[in-house]
């Protein structure tokens, strides 16, 4: 499977965060397999037109959170995750996404029951 990355300069999210999310999502859904070798930082910075620093920061955070492993002199690789680990990380990412809309939903004074009902009705659309 191929790595897919696209960066939006106008996004509210910083570039390193966009990289982080795209790689993390592709890792937990299995689109990127364990052992996949990420492209060299400089080459990637060149082809995406972004700075090396953004990529380094994304890689650092991905490594800290266990999505990738770096091997000195050989580059960075997608971590070999067990099914359990993968589903745990996937839940964490999903939770982070959900939390982002919680504050607006709470301001709407939506109850948990209402929220679940709404999700039931519209999520599979």
């Amino acid at each position, binding site marked *: 499977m*191929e*790595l897919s*990355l*696209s960066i*939006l300069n*106008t*996004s509210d999210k910083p570039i390193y965060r966009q990289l982080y999310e795209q790689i993390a999502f592709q890792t937990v859904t299995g689109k990127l397999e364990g052992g996949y070798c990420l*492209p060299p930082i400089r080459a*990637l910075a060149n*082809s995406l037109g972004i700075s090396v620093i953004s990529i380094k920061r994304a890689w650092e955070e991905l490594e800290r959170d266990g999505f990738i492993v770096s091997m000195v002199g050989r580059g960075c690789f997608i971590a070999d995750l067990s099914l359990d680990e993968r589903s745990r990380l996937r839940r964490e990412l999903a939770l982070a996404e959900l939390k982002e809309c919680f504050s607006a939903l709470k301001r709407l004074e939506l109850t948990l029951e209402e929220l679940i009902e709404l999700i039931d009705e519209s999520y599979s659309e």
Partner: protein
Amino acid sequence: MPKVLEARNIIKAFPGGFELKSVSLCVESGCITGFIGRNGAGKTTTLKVILGLSSRSGGEVKLFGRAMPEHEVECKKDIGVVFGGFEYYSAKKLKTVTAAFRRFYSNWNDKKYRELLSRFQLDEGKRIKELSAGMKVKYALALALSHDAKLLVLDEPTSGLDPVSRDEIMDIFRDFVSDGERSILFSTHITSDLDKCADHIVYIKDGEIVMSGDREQVTGAYRLVQGGLDALSPALKQALIGIKQTPFGFTGLIREDALHLADGLQTAKADIESIMIYTEKYEHAQS
């Protein structure tokens, strides 16, 4: 809303090959209209033709409902014009320049002029060349605003100014139109100025108007869509107005009504800047 300025199908060809191709634009009363385009797209030429400073080979221009250039003298009493920085008579004092300028306007309002000088903190005893770029624009604005103009036409009033000065100019603009009777047409390539205060947008590209209308409608008609290369179906690619492709994915500009082709992909709001960049730089040959 009544139209204070109407230009229809203006045609003008230059020997070098550049031409205005049937340019139409209008300014409604009480509105700020931003005129955008790259350097050399035809913004200044269009403004010059509208003001009768440059000839046209076709089309018509109406100011306050009266045809130009037949009613030029009456029309121009009600217009304030600022073209670029103020570079004339640079060794003269402001009061000398003002004294020369005011004689052209029977409706000159000296009280208003004094008010503007103190608001803009301009010293009449200074010489033009002693003013900073921002002060020059403010002085030009003070002159343009002191004869009760109903329409201001400005060519890149904010270029070369720092962000704070630009913001001040935008405040002056909003203030000017706040009574709903007066209007502004200004050209710029600084898209953040438009985000701050333009009600309408007219976008010119290679001498041709490619977009015009309510700012939020114009920007709302587009989305940025991004994804991996495997998501770039031929139909989607066809629908993208501009596309930036890397070995790892793509980002493209798409019309809101074609968004169903990008189902499941991440999308984001497009601002004027990205609309311009994707339309001009990443435009792809639609075969």
